[in-house]
């Protein structure tokens, strides 16, 4: 089990991320992505929704940097537009996973007991399903759509997060300062908030960044199958679906959304790795 061995203060972590060139680049990439997501409409080279049926599957040119899609829409603009979903979707799933996994994990780690056993068994059960299969099952219940898909993914992620939080909480709880806090009668909620949470922030943050990347990949898979983002909304995953159906016309159209996705997942993973290194959480294999 890994334990945080160095300070996990936000400033500290940020500084160590920015110090390494690889993670600094990754961090910069995410900032740019956020910028695209928020300020997208201001910077589209063209309106991503405007169709130009006379100019379908155009090659890359100065007017259309990445060409046009099956409806003549500018691919570059659509990629930028889809970045909004690339940011929101993982946030939804990670949010759901945190909502379920964090409080349960904290309680189970600190107090153990019935909550721990029951939640643990449930976690094992959900964990025994492949992620996509579980997400499919939940989408079958909730119905297709982006939000439903991301909630499904969040539910599937929560047992893993629960385990990480539980483990980290247990390690921190073994520290003497927690024992002293409890001994002086500090109520559980306060102990959790003041003592435990800040100290598990690091492994939690590592897990969250990795989950963001995985959420994006699973969303793309679900949208590709047709169960995630529904037209006319666009995510990189649904763009890949369109690219797939039109493979024969335009083999290149597969590339831009894929690269956008790979770079984003890569950025998340790199940041996660450098946080892990910065705080001394060497995964002992």
């Amino acid at each position, binding site marked *: 089990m890994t334990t945080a061995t160095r300070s996990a203060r936000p400033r500290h972590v940020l500084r160590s991320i920015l110090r390494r060139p690889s993670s600094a680049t990754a961090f910069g990439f995410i900032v740019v992505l956020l910028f695209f997501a928020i300020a997208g409409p201001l910077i589209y080279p063209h309106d991503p929704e405007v169709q130009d049926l006379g100019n379908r599957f155009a090659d890359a040119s100065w007017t259309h940097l990445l060409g046009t899609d099956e409806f003549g829409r500018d691919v570059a603009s659509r990629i930028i537009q889809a970045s909004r979903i690339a940011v929101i979707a993982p946030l939804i799933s990670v949010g759901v996973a945190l909502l379920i996994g964090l409080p349960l994990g904290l309680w189970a780690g600190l107090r153990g007991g019935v909550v721990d056993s029951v939640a643990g*068994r*449930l976690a*094992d*059960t*959900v964990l*025994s*399903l*492949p*992620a*996509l*299969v*579980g997400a*499919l*099952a939940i*989408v*079958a*219940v*909730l*119905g297709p759509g982006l939000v439903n898909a991301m909630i499904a993914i969040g539910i599937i992620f929560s047992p893993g997060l629960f385990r990480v939080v539980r483990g980290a909480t247990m390690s921190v709880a073994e520290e003497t300062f927690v024992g002293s806090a409890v001994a002086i009668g500090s109520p559980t909620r306060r102990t959790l908030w003041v003592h435990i949470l800040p100290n598990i922030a690091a492994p939690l943050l590592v897990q969250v960044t990795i989950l963001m*990347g995985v959420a994006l*990949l*699973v969303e*793309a*898979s679900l949208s*590709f*199958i*047709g*169960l995630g983002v529904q037209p006319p909304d666009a995510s990189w995953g649904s763009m*890949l679906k369109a*690219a*797939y159906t039109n*493979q*024969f016309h335009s*083999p290149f159209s*597969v*590339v831009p959304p*894929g690269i956008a*996705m*790979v*770079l984003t*997942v*890569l950025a998340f*993973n*790199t940041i996660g790795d450098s946080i892990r290194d910065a705080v001394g959480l060497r995964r002992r*294999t």
Partner: protein
Amino acid sequence: MSPGSAHSSFHVRWTEVAVSAGMVIRRLGGGLLVLWLVSILTFLLVQLIPGDPAEVIAGENATVAEVARIRAELGLDKPVLERYFEWFSGVIQGDLGNSLFTNRSVADTIIEAAPPTVVITLASIMIAVVLGVTVGVFAGLTQGSWVDRTVSTFATLGIAMPSFWLAMVLVSVFALANPWLPATGYVDFSEGFWEWSSYVILPATALGVATAAELARHTRGCVADVLTRPYVRTARARGASGTWLVRRHIVRNAAIPVVTVLGLQAGRLLGGVIVVEAVFGISGLGSLAINAVLQRNYPMIQGYVLFSAVIVVAINLIVDLAYGWINPKVRTA
């Protein structure tokens, strides 16, 4: 690779057998418990559908008669527990119910659709292990060199890549741009080895690369770590070096976490194969699952989910056993 006790293969260590058997039984018990809980959860799926399940399944344009049929099929009038016991007793005997739309047995449909999926998944594991471990060992042995750095870069990329995107890229390059391999479809092994493998290789590669990347990363880390261990120094002090050293001292010790990684990747592979099959238009379990979800064919979904869980639990059990076989310390623990 043979464990050090190979020369005792004719001499059975009974204590070890007993302890191992106990361990196996305990794991099996745990696995069965989990599967039972999975069955409960999947059964509850239908319960959790907002609104009236029968109506939702039938769709918007369904007639009253259709809705009633579906309700009867699913036995939605009966109380929950009774329904569960009926279903569960069927499950234990291998009867997973019937598909809502074709009325064929779910179990039969799954078994029919399984072969391509199984073949591709196994092939992808083989590719992943051969590629990932070999490359990882080289990278670990030549730490810091250009080999190591190239491998690490490709590994990081491989992990970030969605399998289905890689599948499409491979199709673009190897099937569309140059007609070397088929872009879609699947043929049975009986059609001939080369024919069959030409349909398997692209999907298996697409699926296996991400696992290969994880394996390469872990193997590299392990090998690099093992190299710093004192017993490697002792082995060198005895005159061991080169392939002898790698084979007998390093690989065996670095293999331990590799087995664990494979176990963790099993879930990812089972999920990824669904989408990869969609890319290649293969009628395996993947398309079965997708259609079942799209049609809200709940018995099929339940059957499929349960089936997947069984596979994952079985794989984890095998991984635990393999871990015990490779790492002698665990056997007598």
